[in-house]
């Protein structure tokens, strides 16, 4: 199966790779939310971090790390780009189907985009929990498989 140019671009030049600190530091930072989804045994683990400007409530910066196939790497890279500048609600509105469309992911790779949506939701939920903001049920809702 050949990959589309956008997947390859994100895979070869991933945007916003990294982390806002060690796992320990991140846990303590209230301006950062982390989503860690997937499992090594499943062949995919995605870690997505958002840094929120606490004055405006907007996502100032986002970073990711990913153990997974090229499509998973591209999906998480794209997610960090899209998250920057968004409010939490706008972030929650990102759908895996939009990632599929933007990257032209083939059907067998849809679950990689699902993982990215799950990571976004988990990171926002983590931020909210840390800051005593109630987490809506639908925040946790699984992306559309």
């Amino acid at each position: 199966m050949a990959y589309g140019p956008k997947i390859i671009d994100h895979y070869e030049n991933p945007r916003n790779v990294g982390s806002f600190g060690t796992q320990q530091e991140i846990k303590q930072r209230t301006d950062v939310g982390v989503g860690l989804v997937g499992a090594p045994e499943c062949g995919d683990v995605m870690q997505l971090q958002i840094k929120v400007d606490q004055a405006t409530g907007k996502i100032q910066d986002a970073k990711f790390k990913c153990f997974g196939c090229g499509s998973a790497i591209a999906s998480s890279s794209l997610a960090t780009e899209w998250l920057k500048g968004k409010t939490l609600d706008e972030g929650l509105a990102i759908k895996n189907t939009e990632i599929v469309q933007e990257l032209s992911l083939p059907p067998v790779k849809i679950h990689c985009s699902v993982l990215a949506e799950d990571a976004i939701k988990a990171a926002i939920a983590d931020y909210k929990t840390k800051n005593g903001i109630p987490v809506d049920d639908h925040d946790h809702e699984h992306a559309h498989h």
Partner: protein
Amino acid sequence: MALTLPIYLDHAATTPCDPRVVEAMLPYFTKVYGNPGSRNHRFGWEAEDGVDRARQQVAALLGANEKEIVFTSGATESNNLAIKGAAEMYEKASAGSGQCRGHIITCKIEHKAVLDPCKRLQKEGFEVTYLDPPRDGVITRAMVEAVLRPDTILVSLMWANNEIGTVSEIREIGALCHEREIVFHTDATQWAGKMPTNVERDNIDLLSMSGHKIYGPKGVGALYVRRRKPRVRLVAQVDGGGQERGFRSGTLNVTGIVGLGKACEIAMAEMDHEGERLLRLRKRLEQGIAGGLDHVQINGHADKRLPHITNISFGFVEGESLMMACKDIAMSSGSACTSASLEPSYVLKGLGIGDDLAHSSLRFSLGRWTTEAEVDYTVSKVVESVNRLRGLSPLYDMFKEGIDLTKIEWAHH
């Protein structure tokens, strides 16, 4: 010599045809096109001569008699004929009797072309033991002996494994089967034509092989069927015109058979020299990669293995993304996260390698025209890509921070 990309390191999947093989085949498409079954004109006789020569070439490679070679469409068909054909011939009770029709021994890391016929036989009243391989992948005589039963009628074990290249104790297991009068089949698809084979010395009753793994054409293979001490009989699985002494009906694939024969002849002549060369190259590849990276593991027994196949796990990096990084190099991934099932290779899992490492594994298989320059390019490309992907890997970060990855509560899908 200049390096040309892409590089093909997937010879365990299939090999290019040797030009000498193609040359031997060509006249049989347009000049010697007769049906070897046509016994009353020269077109038929000439085609038959070509098939006869190929039969001798295959037999010579295996240390067999030419009357013991049955041509098939490949190793999948050879395995089906051997396993189903022997089970049906040597059954202890007939179908529908409600009794166990006989016991068969095989192994969990066999090719699907062995496992699936066995599964079908299970549905049809046979009992099958699937041996759990040890971590090094080598099946021994003692492992087989431990599960033998008075009603065991067939043992089927691959000579060399296609994913990790490890070699089992075939000669010893064959001896055991002969002592107990049990039919012994080996899927030698990856072994024959690469390593010295002698069905007498190695105590084999049935042996499957395939043309396209040994620089011959695709869609042709052979099954060796022992004719004496003991004579092994099979129930045919393809009925029709009675070709191949009734074992396998259908007009012979003359061009393919001629190509298979030529491929066997070349393999036999060049095996020793080629094996040494491939072993040197494989060691160069393994040492280059292991020397350039930490947390890599070569899967399967260190020495009991084919010269040209190696399977390497790269900790903290997912196999498919690594293949994408090395897109100029054709190899195969132990990870099958591409499928909806997210299942990693059942062979690596069967060895107890762990699903996480199984997702992080690549198989490199070298071939007749693989060069040192290609190996060196592969080493540097793999080392560079693993390092880059580890830079992206959350697991590598956690590992470096001293977090025990097995203690994390992963959200399993």
